[in-house]
């Protein structure tokens, strides 16, 4: 009881500091906004450090601190390959694709990927297909941030508020903050969140390893509890080769398909800043995922039979000192807000890039769009499951299906490629959704449906690119 009171005291102190930081950053950013590009694109002048922190904080969110330990606990060490190794390839993709994207963005006056695709294909449906695709698959991704933190706060505060109450509160803060300060404000808060996330995750991991008498002993105890966690495919057979290959493809394509990431490549000051950012993100990925192994393995030993919310509240809060538990809670709220606001802001940016007319009116519609997207995410968060990592993966795979049509448009300037790849991509998205809903089978010719669709789309894009007229 006394422990909980100490934790709540520190939550209030850290919470007040966090809110103070948010308000200050929002107001400072607002004072620097001179035009719509400043508000939506951070003035296209982001340096290496700010770019690195915002990219990392957007990519590594509540999903990292809540989803990954649970993934390691349930499915074992293969989770490292699922995320960390895939991220290693993804940062190389940033170098290759970022270069081409920035070139095209300069030529076409970039406002968002939807607008850029409309320009490249010379057909507004290219932009619409992309926009609808990201709406369908990013809303679940935003929702899992909200869902994750809501179920966690619900458990931590002994049902003081229902999960939808926490979700609404977080979304309200997020919308107010984003609409006040714009992208720069989001980026500054990302720096704060990135540092907090990294600090907290290492402290918790250290506590977990200490409680199990060191790394060697930790894995020895996991071996006793469930030996299958120490190798692939894991106790439930999830990490088979097909799953890992399809996951790697989906994650590698994040900088291509997810607008909150691709827009961050475009707004970097220059190529050199973007390149340095990519390497820094790779280092950050290793450093932030590594401690989640320890947290997950600790969970496998101590809380193997617990539900996800119970495991997370035990390991992240009740097994920690009050001050650490409080910092974790604020860190998680910050992570949820920083990732969700980046995604919702990016979706609004995509909406803006499709709209034409007076800039002020367009900005007003964009801001209304932001609220609509947030409400959609709130609604979905109430009905989604607690399998955070798997829901995130679903989002990566769904948006990944649009990568071939994007890559083809970006890296084939001067070629007339036609709209067929756009329609085939739209069809692939529908097939994928139907498969997830159980209307179509989950595998074709012995291949997982996402892997099958990646291969078909990739080959189609290759042929369309080769046959495209100069």
């Amino acid at each position: 009881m006394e422990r909980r009171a100490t934790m709540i005291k520190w939550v209030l102190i850290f919470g007040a500091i966090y809110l103070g930081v948010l308000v200050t950053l929002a107001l400072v950013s607002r004072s620097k906004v001179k035009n719509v590009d400043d508000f939506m694109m951070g003035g296209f002048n982001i340096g290496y450090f700010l770019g690195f922190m915002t990219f990392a904080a957007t990519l590594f969110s509540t999903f990292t601190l809540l989803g990954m330990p649970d993934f390691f606990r349930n499915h074992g060490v293969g989770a490292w390959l699922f995320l960390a190794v895939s991220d290693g390839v993804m940062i190389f993709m940033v170098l290759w694709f970022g270069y081409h994207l920035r070139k095209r963005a300069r030529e076409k006056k970039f406002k968002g990927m939807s607008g850029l695709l409309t320009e490249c294909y010379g057909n507004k449906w290219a932009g619409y297909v992309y926009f609808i695709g990201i709406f369908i698959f990013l809303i679940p991704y935003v929702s899992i941030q909200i869902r994750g933190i809501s179920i966690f706060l619900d458990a931590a505060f002994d049902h003081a508020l229902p999960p939808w109450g926490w979700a609404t509160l977080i979304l309200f803060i997020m919308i107010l903050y984003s609409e006040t300060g714009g992208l720069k404000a989001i980026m500054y808060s990302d720096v704060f969140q990135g540092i907090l996330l990294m600090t907290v995750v290492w402290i918790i991991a250290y506590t977990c390893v200490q409680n199990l008498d060191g790394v060697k002993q930790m894995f020895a105890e996991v071996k006793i509890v469930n030996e299958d966690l120490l190798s692939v495919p894991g106790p439930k057979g999830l990490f088979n080769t097909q799953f890992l290959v399809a996951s790697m493809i989906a994650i590698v394509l994040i900088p291509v398909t997810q607008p909150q990431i691709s827009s961050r490549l475009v707004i970097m000051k220059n190529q050199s800043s973007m390149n340095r950012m990519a390497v820094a993100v790779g280092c950050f990925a290793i450093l932030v995922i590594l401690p989640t192994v320890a947290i997950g393995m600790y969970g496998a030993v101590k809380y193997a039979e617990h539900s996800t919310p119970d495991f997370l509240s035990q390991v992240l809060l009740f097994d920690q000192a009050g001050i650490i538990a409080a910092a974790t809670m604020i860190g998680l709220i910050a992570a949820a807000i920083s990732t969700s606001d980046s995604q919702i802001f990016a979706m609004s940016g995509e909406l803006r890039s499709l709209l034409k007319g007076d800039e002020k009116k367009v900005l007003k519609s964009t801001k209304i769009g932001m609220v609509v997207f947030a409400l959609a995410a709130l609604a979905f968060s109430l009905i989604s499951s607690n399998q955070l990592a798997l829901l995130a993966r679903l989002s990566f795979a769904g948006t990944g299906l649009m990568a071939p049509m994007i890559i083809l448009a970006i890296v084939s300037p001067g070629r007339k490629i036609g709209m067929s790849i756009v329609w085939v991509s739209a069809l692939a998205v529908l097939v994928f959704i139907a498969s997830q809903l159980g209307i179509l089978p989950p595998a074709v010719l012995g291949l997982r449906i996402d892997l099958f669709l990646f291969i078909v789309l990739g080959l189609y894009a290759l042929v369309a690119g080769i046959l495209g007229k100069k």
Partner: protein
Amino acid sequence: MNTKKKSTYWHLCIAGVVLVSILTFTPLVIPEGIYQPMLAGVPYTLWMGIVVAIVLVTLTYFGTKFHPGNGEEGHND
């Protein structure tokens, strides 16, 4: 360093990343159901996975040195 040499190294980096990615999905990194040999108590697939991730970041670092877009100007230049 001349452009041709740089381009060769850049393509070598790409080849390296592709090769490492493919090797990741072979029994060299993910032998099914096997966790030996352990390194300092860490199971095989995990420590190999950590090595693979470090190699990929290193290749990306070298990629930044030889990337054809090095020296490209920014939006406002």
